[in-house]
């Protein structure tokens, strides 16, 4: 039977753009270009490599997000994923991690999966909690923050490089995996890939397709609330000296003045 891989990808505002908040204190997605979260490219890459090693596998990319999030799906399809699922609903605006994981879990059950692959964190919210939440909600093993991953004989194995130790992990499928940016550079879409992606199927789902009520998601029903967002004052310009042979000593003088020495 075919190995069903589903990659969760997020559409995020470009981190190198001037990101800010909208009036309702959600992330403003209008003024900054969006793109496939760079950290999710690693997830797509690992899925493609797992597929290459498997006898028979199919990769679905899944996103929960606004209309424009299709761009993220297209990018993943042009890298080589087979098909896409887009969960899109006006009631989703402002949904937090708990809500997003609920929608993703329902969508995963709807699509069907043997292996879920996520990025280590999204580059906007950056909580790094959704994969663990998915494992909890789906009741399947959590094999997360892997810098190396392999799927064989119905098992996923991988290496997790933690703060205190490096761990070798093993779990039976179905499972939720997340991969770090140490897992290996993501490929660039080829011209052929980009052309092929245009013909690949993208299924759209809304909340009612997933049996989710509007009052379970969205800004008003989120489990958390942002009350205030203030732009950090620009750091006041410091002293900058050019090294004319005494730069190290001048710096030491500064550090001594600040009581660091």
């Amino acid at each position: 039977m075919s190995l069903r891989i589903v990659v969760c990808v997020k559409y995020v505002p470009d981190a190198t753009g001037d990101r800010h908040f909208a009036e309702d204190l959600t992330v403003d997605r209008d003024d900054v270009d969006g793109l496939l979260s760079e950290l999710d490219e690693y997830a797509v890459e690992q899925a493609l490599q797992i597929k290459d090693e498997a006898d028979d596998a199919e990769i679905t990319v899944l996103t929960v997000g606004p209309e424009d999030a299709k761009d993220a799906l297209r990018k993943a399809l042009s890298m080589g994923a087979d098909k896409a699922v887009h969960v899109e609903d006006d009631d989703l605006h402002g949904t937090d991690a708990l809500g997003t994981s609920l929608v993703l879990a329902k969508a995963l059950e709807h699509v069907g999966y043997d292996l879920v692959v996520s990025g280590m964190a999204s580059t906007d919210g950056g909580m790094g909690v959704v994969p663990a939440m998915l494992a909890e909600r789906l009741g399947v093993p959590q094999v997360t923050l892997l810098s190396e991953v392999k799927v064989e004989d119905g098992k996923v194995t991988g290496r997790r490089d933690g703060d205190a130790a490096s761990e070798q992990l093993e779990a039976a499928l179905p499972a939720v995996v997340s991969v770090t940016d140490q897992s290996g550079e993501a490929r660039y879409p080829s011209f052929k890939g980009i052309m092929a992606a245009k013909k690949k199927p993208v299924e759209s789902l809304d909340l009612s397709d997933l049996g989710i009520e509007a009052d379970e998601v969205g800004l008003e029903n989120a489990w958390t609330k942002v009350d205030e967002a203030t732009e950090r004052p620009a750091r006041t310009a410091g002293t900058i000296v050019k090294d004319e042979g005494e730069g190290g000593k001048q710096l030491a003088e500064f550090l001594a003045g600040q009581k660091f020495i």
Partner: protein
Amino acid sequence: MAEVLVYVDHVDGAVRKPTLELLTLARRIGEPVAVHLGAGADAAAATLAEYGAVKVLTADAAEFADYLVAPKVDALEAAYKAVSPAAVLVPSSAEGKEIAARLAVRIGSGIITDAVDLEAGAEGPVATQSVFAASYSTKSRVTKGTPVITVKPNSAAPEAAPAAGTVEQLAVTVADASKGTKVVARTPRESTGRPELTEAAIVVSGGRGVNGAENFPLIEGLADSLGAAVGASRAAVDAGWYPHTNQVGQTGKSVSPQLYIAAGISGAIQHRAGMQTSKTIVAINKDAEAPIFELVDYGVVGDLFEVVPQLTEEIKTRKG
């Protein structure tokens, strides 16, 4: 007074500093009850009590080490049920965030991650977070369930406030469903003898400008003269010059020391994301246009191979 659960990060009973910070912050909201999993509770209890834990709930089981994350969630959930706390605080490590995330789903509560400050509010604890590569600061609350909040290291200065710290056994049954991911091997990281990167008061980081693993001892020498931790940019890590565990930035560690020294680092947004909240920032870079200079309190435009050795010498001389 309401109780606040504090998840203890420790190595065989040696409590790590971020936990003491959590106890300090917890006291603003209620009475801290520490949750200590694994060996060494008796050794830890003295420290936890000194920093305000009224109780230490403890459980030890082989499953905590044999399987990933989930058994610890079972234990924290048991503590939650035993105490009915006003909030649950967990250190913002990679594992801490995953434990907190799963607990939040289980108990149907909202979660806030990477808080840098915490205060009591009329409608529950208010968490300050630093977002968009620290260009914004937000204040947030959990509006449903019991607030589950992960707190970054260096968010508060630990303050002693002796309390009873009575050790109580916590009954934990690890569910079969929590034994899904086996840890088949574990290689502990070798200690460098330097302070932990995220906890250090001073961090000295090197980037592409260091130009080779063989030159990193220059950065280490400066760090050692200051009793600092060593960091690295992703460019230096990707080149294989320094271990990934030392990477500072979006996909590495996020640090917030009293003093951050960047040598040969340009200051890309992803690097800034991990160090911009440092109190004092210093940079050494030969390019006067490098974006890192926009952040600095003091910058030296110059060759790090000249400036760093001179600085290290001068510090040693001054320290005698």
